[in-house]
């Protein structure tokens, strides 16, 4: 809606009958619009995090330290890109961490039988894709809200991994596979493979969401799924595709995480779904759908990743870091509602 601006027309010099309104191609842009954009605020927040951490810790602004810390959030960030699209269309996938466990189980079991790395990667991606398709089918065919379906499949997928593995761990992997996660893909500047994949995918997702018809269709679904369906958008087909994509990204994250830590246990990636949702929501994607940008999500990934790293450099306990990040998240979700209640409509 914001793209259309209805303005009273200027008095026309020509003698033609005056139109009551002119419809501008895009909304007029003022400096304040730019300054108060969510992404601008995230940039300021990111700058504050970087400057604050640099002042507080001599170890923060070190190329290798920063490269190493990207390992710890890149896998989550990759999944967050898919989650952003899901939340944008009013859906959610809480089973991504469980999908990772199942995909990692497939990778670990095959590796234990001496399967070559390319096939391990394919197996991880394939299992993720299948799990995502299961989610997509259940959501589009049953009409049950995706939060319910994916809580169910979360238990299902992780349950399978737990039953299969018990308290065992899968620990044998080919060296060339482990190198994917344990060495820099580019040596200068030091860039881990997972971080590079995240950057490339972020650009692809940004272009698709903000520059193609499919992207506009996703926004339309998020704004009003019923109206979107009446406008001829194949809502269920897109929903199915997004869940499948989310599963595929979880499979990719499992490939990278397994290579990084070199061990698969049933508790792998436990609780990641909430970390990922935090990234997306802080990135400004509205839970109510229809609003959000990939740039916002990318900025939120950096804000969360670097804030966490900076706090842990000062040995703030992880539980306290979680409290601070939790507060940030609550603030970003609850503040609009609270403000609406206390100040009325603006």
């Amino acid at each position, binding site marked *: 809606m*914001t793209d259309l601006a209805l303005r009273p027309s200027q008095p026309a010099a020509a003698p033609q009958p005056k139109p009551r309104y002119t419809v501008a191609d895009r909304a007029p842009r003022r400096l304040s619009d730019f300054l*108060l954009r*969510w992404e601008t*605020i995230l940039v*300021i*927040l990111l700058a*504050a995090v970087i400057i*604050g951490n640099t002042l*507080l*810790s001599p*170890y923060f602004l*070190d190329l290798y*330290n920063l490269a*190493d*810390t990207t*390992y*710890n959030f890149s896998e989550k960030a990759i999944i967050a890109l898919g989650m952003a699209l899901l939340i944008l269309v009013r859906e959610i996938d809480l089973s991504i961490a469980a999908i990772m466990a199942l995909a990692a189980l497939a990778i670990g079991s095959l590796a234990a039988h001496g399967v070559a790395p390319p096939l391990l990667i394919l197996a991880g991606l394939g299992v993720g894709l299948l799990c995502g398709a299961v989610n997509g089918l259940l959501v589009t065919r049953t009409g049950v809200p995706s939060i319910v379906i994916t809580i169910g499949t979360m238990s299902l997928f992780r349950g399978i991994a737990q039953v299969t593995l018990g308290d065992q*761990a899968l*620990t044998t992997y080919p060296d060339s596979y*482990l190198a994917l996660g*344990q060495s820099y893909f580019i040596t200068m500047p030091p860039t881990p493979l997972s971080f590079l994949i995240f950057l490339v995918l972020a650009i692809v997702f940004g272009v698709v969401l903000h520059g193609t018809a499919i992207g506009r269709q996703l926004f339309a679904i998020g*704004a009003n799924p019923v109206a979107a369906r009446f406008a001829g958008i194949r809502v269920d087909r897109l929903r199915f595709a997004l869940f499948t994509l989310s599963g595929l990204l979880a499979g990719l994250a499992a490939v990278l995480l397994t290579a*990084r*830590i*070199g*061990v698969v*246990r049933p*508790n*792998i*990636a436990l*609780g990641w779904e909430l970390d990922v949702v935090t990234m997306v929501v802080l990135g*400004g994607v*509205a839970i*109510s759908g229809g609003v959000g940008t990939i740039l916002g999500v990318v900025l939120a990934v950096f804000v969360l990743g670097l804030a966490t*790293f*900076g*706090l*842990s*450099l*000062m*040995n*703030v*306990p*992880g*539980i*306290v*870091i*979680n409290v*601070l990040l939790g*507060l*940030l998240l609550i*603030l*970003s979700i609850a*503040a*609009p509602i609270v*403000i*609406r209640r206390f*100040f009325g*409509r*603006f």
Partner: protein
Amino acid sequence: MNDNSYTADRRRLLKVLAAGSAAAALPLGFGTPAFAANKRIALVVKNLGNTYFDACRDGANEAAKQLGGMEIIYTAPTKPTAEDQIAVLDSLIAQKVDGLIIAADDANALVPVGKKAMQRGIKVISFDSAVATGGRLMHLSASSTPMIGAKQVQMIAKTLKGEGEVAILSAASTMTNQNSWIAAMKEEWKKPEYAKMPLVATVYGDDQDDKSYREMQALVKAHPNLKGVISPTTIGIRAGAKAIMDGGLIGKVYITGLGLPSEMKDAVEKGACDSFAIWNPVDYGYAATMIMADILGGASAKPGTSVKMGRLGETKIGDDGEAVMGEPFTFDKSNVEKFAKIF
């Protein structure tokens, strides 16, 4: 129109957020050390809020105080998973700490990060739960399997004065550590001084309170002359002690084994248990820190060499890169109350 109000709300929200993040930045200063210590050693345990590890930290602090010029950073991941512990270790490596003492959430997953730390000149050892070989210089075990097995047989022999039928109440028949301890007990049992103290049964409570409790009741019924029970598991020993107290068997049957003072205090005071053992976590943290100080001082920690553990003496590192702190610590009426407050 909903969209418009949403946008407007968001602008408001942004201002609130900006203020909030400024406030959130305030507590940042608290984590920085008040003084620059010469050596910084990180004690990375499995999870925070665990009294057992808190007791280990107290021991580490005791060692640091005794040595001087040493700062202990006590930390742990929020979730006891390998990924989270790796993130914690990464931030410690980034700070260029001098030493890492790790209780591993996952032996194998920490090898790459341990290697990275050692490449950057950080000394790495593990305690409690080992990091696999290659990811650390050495591992300090609280006790060895033969010591743990022998200790429990010695305790029940002391209680029963070497006479009477004894049974074992274990966890699950599939648990490797339980089975190796039982094998070590049987080894000790071969000695002539235990000739009048036969082992009559071994039963399994699967580390569940209710099943262990029923197994204990069944043992007493099946063996009317039963005098003692050894339970090498903290759950088995507390459930067994409860069965003795509930069944009015105090004075007739005694239980011993590996237990936690906080859970066994009642049983010891009522007489269901004469003595039990487990390693002392304060000593454990102390010993690990002393070994780290020794390594920072130049000890090689190679297999076959010895490292110093302060007031606990020295320990020799075996071929597998593992060393043993000592035999399990015995708890009885004289000290259980004091340690029940610790763990």
